[in-house]
């Protein structure tokens, strides 16, 4: 990226005379913000290895020894162990199913263009503007009717339904950007529509589908309001709900900041790992089509 910028500056002297005082200040402030962000992240990680007394005494200190006490507390007292398992299973299962359900629909709506599909696409996009709190109570009542409250199966189903608008919207745009000629070639070679879709188009769409999957993984991992409403017993808690429970426990038993930092790490680190893995693809997926 900086390569092109440099060559651009090399090309045009007009672009070079931009170093003004406000700009320099801006650049300075920006790097301070970036540095603070990184320091904050490292700091959280470091604090999760120190006990609360140490943290309060010297908030910037390094651990005297790398104690795992906080992690053990969080894991056992905070019930973060079950919550982590629940969160991993829920996020993975619901994201896989979301993509499995949404991709064929997006394929059809992206490829076939008539009044019906345009209407259907609009129908799916409509959901993007509905705040979750609107469907919160009816969903609770409905799932209760089928004994699906306080159940991870119920939560998974809800996540799939709620994710439809964004995933279908994202994937329609993606399928439209794929060349159609390959499919025509496959058809000429005698492949039926199913084979064409499953063996030709879907493999081509791997990148977009992976992006959609990971974006759902992130949003289901972090989802709080629905999980808080639909889950009641601690055995079923997902991480965000467990974190809320742990914070509220602190009010009565005195703050255990060490344990809390371990809990925060459990919520943040998987996201960091995914981000380091996929990086720009995620930010591009989340800003897709908006800059165009």
């Amino acid at each position: 990226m900086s390569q092109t910028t440099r060559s651009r500056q090399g090309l045009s002297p007009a672009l070079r005379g931009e170093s003004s005082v406000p700009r320099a200040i801006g650049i300075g402030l920006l790097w301070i913000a970036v540095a603070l962000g990184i320091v904050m992240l490292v700091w959280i990680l470091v604090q999760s290895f120190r006990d609360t007394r140490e943290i309060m005494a010297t908030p910037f200190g390094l651990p005297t020894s790398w104690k795992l006490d906080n992690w053990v507390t969080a894991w056992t007292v905070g019930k973060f162990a079950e919550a982590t398992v629940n969160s991993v299973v829920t996020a993975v299962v619901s994201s896989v199913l979301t993509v499995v359900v949404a991709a064929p629909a997006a394929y059809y709506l992206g490829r076939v263009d008539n009044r019906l599909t345009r209407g259907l696409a609009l129908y799916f996009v409509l959901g993007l503007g509905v705040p979750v709190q609107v469907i919160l109570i009816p969903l609770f009542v409905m799932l209760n009717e089928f004994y699906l409250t306080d159940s991870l199966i119920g939560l998974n189903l809800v996540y799939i339904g709620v994710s439809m608008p964004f995933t279908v919207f994202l994937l329609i745009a993606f399928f439209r950007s794929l060349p159609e000629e390959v499919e025509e070639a496959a058809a000429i070679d005698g492949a039926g529509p199913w084979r064409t879709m499953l063996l030709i188009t879907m493999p081509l769409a791997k990148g977009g589908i992976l992006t959609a999957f990971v974006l759902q993984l992130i949003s289901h991992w972090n989802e709080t309001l629905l999980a808080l409403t639909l889950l009641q017993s601690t055995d079923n808690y997902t991480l965000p709900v467990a974190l809320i429970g742990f914070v509220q426990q602190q009010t009565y038993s005195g703050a255990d900041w060490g344990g809390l930092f371990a809990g925060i790490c459990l919520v943040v680190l998987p996201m960091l790992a995914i981000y380091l893995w996929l990086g720009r693809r995620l930010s591009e997926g989340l800003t897709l089509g908006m800059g165009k």
Partner: protein
Amino acid sequence: MTAVLPAPTPRAGRGPTPRAGRGPAPRAGHGNIIAQQRRRLLVPLVGPAFLFYTVLFILPAVAAVWISLHKWAGSGPMTFVGLRNYVQVVQDPLFVRAFGNTLLLLIVVGLAIFVLAFAMSLVLRNMRGRGIARSVIFFPHLVNALVFGTLAGFLFNPGGLVNALLRPFGVTEPPAWLAQENIFPLIMLTLVLVNTGYYTTILMAGVDRIPPYLYEDCALAGANAWQRLRHLILPLTWDVFGTCAVLWTISSVKIFELIWIFGGSSGAGIPPTSTWTAAVYTYVTAFSGQSIPAYGAATASAIISLVLVSLLAVLLRRVMHREAIEF
């Protein structure tokens, strides 16, 4: 891949290609067998998504309108009360406060985010190491807001980091940051810090589209930085601003976690009423467990939020809509 493809007609890969399903006329053309066969797959391909979405999203949304017209405690009989829930909610000082807070987040925090994000995208435009800077400022968007609430609580608590940092500067009696009246401003500040990076990323995509020769034009015409901003950058990124504004409207009305995590501070598990947003009001009215759940009133308050989002989205589209500038 492209080498093997027959290219009888020059077709663009994206955009409205002359596809078979479009209009009745070109149906006879080649490559339409696949399109025709594909068209028959409507039910197996779209059906499951349609079903999930309709049953778990649209149906509840319609049911919400229905419930909001009734007095209902979640079980037992529903009595039809017409629009009385709405009247009751609008007259509830707690709701007025919560709705006002949501508007504050939407407008004040929104403006702050936009000004900062736009400034940052201008600074980042041709800065060294912008890739790294952009990656770092985007990351908070992937983290649960609960984390930021907890951190703010740690940094600002009486024995916390902020007070420790202020002490060397002679601040011996720091303000009570986490006093009830200060929590909401603190939440607003946190929201600005956390969201600016995401919107910067989007705006940058818009700023990056502006071809460099237009900047050269500006330089040759002797435009100063302000004129360039006013007459080049703003008009050409205006539509991206519009998208961002709609995006922020939708996401700001949903804000819940960041407020909820401050519930610990009041002891009851429910955040102080001065910090409530519309989403928190809905949740507490239905599920607090402290009074008889009022599902009707709760959904009515949620529907009001939905109406706000819809109105603003339409309004923003009107206001922000300009003739698309081709460049």
